[in-house]
């Protein structure tokens, strides 16, 4: 079926004829040297990412509260980041295709979208492993998980669209337009939506320096959501400078209830006691107290907060980011070359039956 589709593509694609033979003369002379540099670069990617793996498991210190499971962040965040780069590249190349109508741009746009999908899936899987360790479940329909799932569906629809259209020119045009519209959703789904929701357990404020989780201000007796937990501030008790809050925490689906007692020092303005949410490694922090208004600011304290302040962790994280980005560009080139070769072979076959 794919073969028949490619054959149809080839027979109706006059633009792909001779596109691979157009190499500038200056580049032709530099080609052997450039190829050697490219080969060295690819070898370097292999060694670099192997080094990142060794550092991730053996050199980076354990995260407070998460143990060895927290090491997955070194891989999880860069793969998510590369997926954004890939979808952006796909949109830019789709725009270039619509402007210049060169099939090679379509090949690269498709390859970038496929790689973006792959890296998003990797980020989702590594996130699910993290979720199992921290939340006790692989999938929790947390806003971050839901938004990444929607993103996967949007790009899966692009591949479905491409396979549903027989006419090559129409397929390329429609998928380029779709890819541009799909990318509009990426910043919203990756960066905005999970931060709009108050109820997320995804540690946005743990790993991105400078970002803040706002927490939840509650008056005594009021109910609110922290993560996927319903919390109710039952009371505030003061003893000298120490204020202790009584907070009732409900399990997701209201399957169980627990009472936690976070505390706060009014003189030093520091959190004192930060009890863990039942069954989780996240803690409940009392960040601010207003005794006159009988209200308190409650927040989730993620273990591993400030993890990138450790230099070894930061360098390994940046090395991972660079390594995965380079790997993406290599994979993009290989896949686009394969798509170009397949198109040219079909074209030749159609031309010489």
């Amino acid at each position, binding site marked *: 079926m794919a073969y028949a589709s490619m054959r149809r593509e080839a027979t109706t694609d006059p633009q792909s004829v001779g596109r*691979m033979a157009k190499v500038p003369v200056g580049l032709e002379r530099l080609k052997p040297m450039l190829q050697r540099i490219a080969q060295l670069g*690819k070898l370097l990617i292999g060694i670099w990412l*192997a080094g990142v*793996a*060794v550092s*991730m*498991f*053996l050199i980076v210190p354990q995260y407070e509260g998460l143990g060895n499971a927290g090491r997955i962040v070194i891989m999880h965040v860069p793969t998510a980041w590369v997926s954004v780069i890939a979808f952006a590249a796909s949109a830019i190349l789709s725009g270039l295709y619509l402007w210049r109508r060169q099939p090679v741009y379509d090949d690269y746009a498709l390859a970038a979208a496929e790689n973006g999908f792959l890296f998003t899936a990797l980020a989702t899987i590594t996130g699910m492993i993290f979720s199992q360790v921290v939340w006790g479940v692989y999938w929790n329909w947390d806003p971050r998980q839901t938004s990444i799932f929607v993103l996967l569906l949007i790009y899966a629809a692009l591949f479905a669209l491409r396979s549903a259209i027989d006419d090559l020119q129409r397929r390329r045009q429609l998928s380029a337009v779709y890819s541009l519209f799909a990318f509009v959703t990426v910043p919203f789904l990756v960066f905005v939506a999970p931060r709009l929701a108050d109820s997320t357990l995804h540690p946005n404020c743990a790993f991105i320096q400078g970002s803040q989780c706002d927490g939840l201000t509650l008056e005594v007796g009021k109910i609110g959501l922290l993560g996927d937990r319903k919390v109710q501030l039952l009371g505030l008790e003061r003893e000298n400078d120490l204020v202790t809050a009584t907070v009732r925490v409900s399990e997701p689906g209201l399957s169980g209830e627990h009472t936690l007692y976070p505390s706060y020092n009014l003189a030093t303005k520091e959190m004192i006691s930060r009890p863990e949410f039942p069954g989780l490694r996240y803690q409940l922090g009392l960040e601010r107290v207003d005794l006159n208004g009988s209200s308190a600011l409650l927040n989730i304290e993620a273990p591993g907060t400030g993890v990138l302040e450790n230099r070894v962790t930061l360098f390994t994280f940046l090395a991972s980011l660079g390594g995965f980005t380079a790997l993406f560009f290599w994979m993009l080139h*290989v896949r686009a070359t394969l798509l170009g070769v397949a198109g040219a072979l079909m074209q030749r076959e159609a031309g010489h039956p």
Partner: protein
Amino acid sequence: MNPTNLLEAGVAIYVALAVALSVWIGIFVYLWRIDAHARNLRHELDRQQRREQAQSATPNVTITRVHSPERGTVDS
């Protein structure tokens, strides 16, 4: 060696590293080979395309001599 020993706290991290490195080496070798094959295919296609273009650029005329009783000998 007892397989359960591999999951002990002190050993598990080395086992995880060995698995991760094995997976990465496998992916790297696979990608390297595909890259090489794709590059060779592309070079071969480019070469054939250039050869065909060169052939089509060469004049290709067949001269035949036809004997005609009315018009004598005609070259076409």
